[in-house]
């Protein structure tokens, strides 16, 4: 065969392919046969050392070897590496998986041919330096670059041969004196290594980023929801387009600890209702408003023995009618219990949420007590000192029945656990019975008089001074009397802490706008394409996790240190890395590495960086021929 330039062009790629095939074959042979074959190849190499030397240090071979390496690295990213034979067979089928395993492509980066190519690359680097005598000043750049790569590979080899890597998981107070060695894929092996000292975990600590609630826009994408955008406290007031819905939305206000206060304002005469603004000592909140003629709002129970009534009638104002107790239940989300409360009585059942649920009111305990010994609930007396209602909620769709205890002062106990699926939140209000015969009653009438009754008998009357604060009865002060007033809700936050997060949002479609309140965890549809606006907590993220450790020898502390991600602790030739953190334990996962090649690799890094900079910017090279040495 003539050695034409056309054929010469294929020499280096052919040599590279042959090299890979030979390395693959050597890797498949038993150790003794592989050693024998390598010895034969070494003898052959010695016999043809001159052309081999020229070939290995030539630019074409460098180019083809680097190309082979990059193709192998790229190939390794298309095939999952390090899978077990079973997992590989499940992914690709038994036949293709077997083929991948024979070729070594299932663990390419740890395969013999791949490592062999790296070794040949390192050899070429060294030979190039020798051939060019590259340590001389004008060639420092290539010397450093080629020598650097060889140094990195040498450092890696040292690390692979004599280095060790293991993992330990400790709880506070626990110690470890040895590590379980990991394989190249990070899986534990049976081998253990003694540290030569004892590592004790003194404390673990996880610091999270501050909580944050945001308004998210989602759209359905297959079986998942895709978040399109979100708004937080910094973006209040900014309109966002909900693409595909024809609508825009914005976050008007964000209330970390939401509360609603009804505020009075003067109404034009003939509109609104008469209102009495009062302040009650010892109550939270102390402000209250009585609205004359408005059912449920004209009366107020001050305490067990006193009630207030605000009437707006001429003539003698009185209060003689008795009123039985009332149980009111309303579903979560409804802010105004007076509008949406369901009046219930023990022993009866009621449909809820348009018939989705059945609410069974099982039992009422006026003066609830729970006996810890017998674990039974009972009522200490008939007086409504601690009213509690026991209810059962049945989901008609799933048939699931759930019992709940409703306490008027603890709405959190009526929440549907694991919502959604746990049923709606229920809130309970108990309105005690009123019997004028038993109570001290104070009435304010249109005559602007305070009328005081005791046991149904008028005890006296006195005028309500205009424009000044007046004590009606002990602990109750009239702030202001409004002949015509109307109430409007005022949303506010009681504190800056995320106790009851609520978002006030506004949605715009063309010229029409509408606003709504969303409590944390609630969502609302937006448009007809399935988009949803949801007010949610931003995903919890760890900011810092740290482990405080002590290194002991013979029970004596030698050293105390803190492990942080990016800040390993070195001792006795080992480096300890903060690897994992488990809050449930709590426990700390610590990676232990001994890498004697680390310094060599770092020297190689410096050499390669410097060498390339010097080669590329501080020297000019003439064009060389096909058989010339590497640059």
């Amino acid at each position, binding site marked *: 065969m003539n050695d034409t330039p056309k054929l010469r062009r294929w020499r280096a790629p052919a040599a590279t392919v042959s090299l890979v095939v030979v390395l693959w074959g050597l890797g498949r042979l038993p150790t003794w046969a592989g050693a024998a074959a390598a010895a034969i190849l070494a003898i052959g190499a010695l016999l043809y050392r001159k052309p081999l030397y020229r070939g290995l240090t030539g630019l074409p071979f460098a180019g083809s070897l680097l190309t082979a390496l990059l193709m192998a690295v790229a190939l390794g990213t298309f095939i999952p590496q390090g899978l077990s034979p079973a997992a590989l067979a499940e992914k690709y089928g038994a036949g293709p998986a077997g083929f991948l395993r024979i070729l070594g492509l299932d663990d390419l980066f740890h395969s013999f041919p791949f490592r062999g190519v790296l070794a040949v690359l390192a050899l070429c680097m060294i030979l190039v330096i020798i051939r060019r005598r590259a340590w001389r000043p004008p060639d420092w750049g290539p010397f450093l670059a080629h020598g650097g790569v060889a140094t990195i590979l040498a450092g890696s080899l040292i690390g692979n041969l004599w280095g060790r890597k293991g993992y330990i998981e400790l709880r506070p107070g626990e110690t470890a004196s040895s590590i379980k060695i990991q394989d190249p894929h990070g899986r534990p092996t049976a081998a253990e290594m003694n540290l030569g000292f004892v590592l004790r975990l003194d404390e673990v600590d996880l610091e999270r980023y501050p909580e944050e609630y*945001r308004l998210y826009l989602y759209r359905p994408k297959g079986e998942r929801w895709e978040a399109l955008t979100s708004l937080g406290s910094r973006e209040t007031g900014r309109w966002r387009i909900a693409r595909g819905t024809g609508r825009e939305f914005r976050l008007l206000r964000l209330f970390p600890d939401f509360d609603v206060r009804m505020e009075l304002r003067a109404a034009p005469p003939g509109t609104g209702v008469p209102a009495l603004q009062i302040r009650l000592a010892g109550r939270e909140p102390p402000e209250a408003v009585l609205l004359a003629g408005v059912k449920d709002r004209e009366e107020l129970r001050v305490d067990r023995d006193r009630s207030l009534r605000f009437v707006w009638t001429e003539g003698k104002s009185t209060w003689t009618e008795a009123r039985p107790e009332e149980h009111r239940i309303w579903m979560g989300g409804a802010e105004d219990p007076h509008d949406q409360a369901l009046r219930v009585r023990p022993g009866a059942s009621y449909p809820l949420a348009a018939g989705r649920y059945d609410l069974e009111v099982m039992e009422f305990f006026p003066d609830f007590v729970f006996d810890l010994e017998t674990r039974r609930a009972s009522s200490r007396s008939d007086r409504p000192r601690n009213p509690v209602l026991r209810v059962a909620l049945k989901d008609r769709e799933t048939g699931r029945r759930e019992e709940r205890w409703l306490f008027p002062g603890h709405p959190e106990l009526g929440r549907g656990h694991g919502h959604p699926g746990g049923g709606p939140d229920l809130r309970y209000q108990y309105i005690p019975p009123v019997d004028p015969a038993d109570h001290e009653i104070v009435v304010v009438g249109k005559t602007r008089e305070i009328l005081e009754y005791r046991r149904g008998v008028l005890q006296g009357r006195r005028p309500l001074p205009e424009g000044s604060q007046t004590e009606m009865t002990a602990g109750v002060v009239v702030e202001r009397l409004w002949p015509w007033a109307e109430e409007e809700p005022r949303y506010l936050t009681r504190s800056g802490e995320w106790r009851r997060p609520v978002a006030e949002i506004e949605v715009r479609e063309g010229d029409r706008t509408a606003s709504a309140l969303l409590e944390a965890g609630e969502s609302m549809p937006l448009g007809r394409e399935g988009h949803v606006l949801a007010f949610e907590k931003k995903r919890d993220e760890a900011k810092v996790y740290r482990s405080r450790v002590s290194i002991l020898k013979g029970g004596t502390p030698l050293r105390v240190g803190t492990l942080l*991600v990016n800040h390993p602790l070195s001792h006795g030739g080992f480096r300890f890395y903060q690897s994992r953190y488990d809050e449930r334990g709590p426990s700390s996962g610590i990676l232990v590495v001994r890498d004697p090649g680390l310094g060599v690799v770092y020297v190689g890094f410096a050499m390669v960086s410097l060498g390339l900079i010097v080669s590329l910017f501080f020297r000019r090279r003439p064009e060389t021929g096909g058989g010339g040495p590497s640059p």
Partner: protein
Amino acid sequence: MTPEILWSERPLLGALVAATLLALPAGLLRIFSRRRIFSGLSLGAAGVAAALNAAVLAEGWIEAGRPPFKTLYETLLLAPMCVWGVTLILLGLYRLWILIPCTAAINAACLLHAIFKPDVEISRLPPALQSVWFVPHVVTYFTAYAGLFASFSLALLALTWPSWHCERSGLGFEDYAHRAASFGIAALTLGLVMGAIWGKEAWGDYWTWDPKENWALVSWLSYLVYLHLRLVRGWKGRPAMSILVFSFLAVVFTYLGMTLLPTAGGSLHVYQ
């Protein structure tokens, strides 16, 4: 994000997009006419765009309370800054006016990608990214990408007009492509080394054969192939320039293509 929303919510970003889009015709005009006004317009638009890009990054840094280099969206705003920086340096060194429209085009593509796929929220830095290596590693890498983009553009020009030579210096597009590539390869090497050192400090390994790491290595090896083969007789010219073009495609895949890989699931580097 519509233009109105862009202007109302991110006026600096809107201005940056406008300046970048303006730089494209201004740069093209400068290529076809050497009149001083077009030089001024072209350079002015490029300078304003670079300054606005710096301002957008500063704004993002302040808003996030951390370097804004974590997510794909954030790096799509960082990349144009680096490309403008390298372009303006090459313009100063070699009067390569042709790079202005190329840069404006790629930067406009980056910015439009960012605008139409913004982050849902500002994400926070996990412990692994709280490292002194975070900023130098990312910035060095994107500076390298910028240099390699310039070499890619010049290599395409060299393939299209192989006989063009600068009257003043006598150099052709191929020479300039090599110079830009040299800068990019040096920066790419530094970025790779920084990433390896960071990996060792964070996870105990300088190399974990993660798909992104592997493709960074593929890109680097590809440029090493270029450096070696361009010195072989017969490889200079079109073959060498073709390698530069393909190498840059590997860079683009490293940056944007990782989610396409079946092995991307376990990667610590892939943009989610």
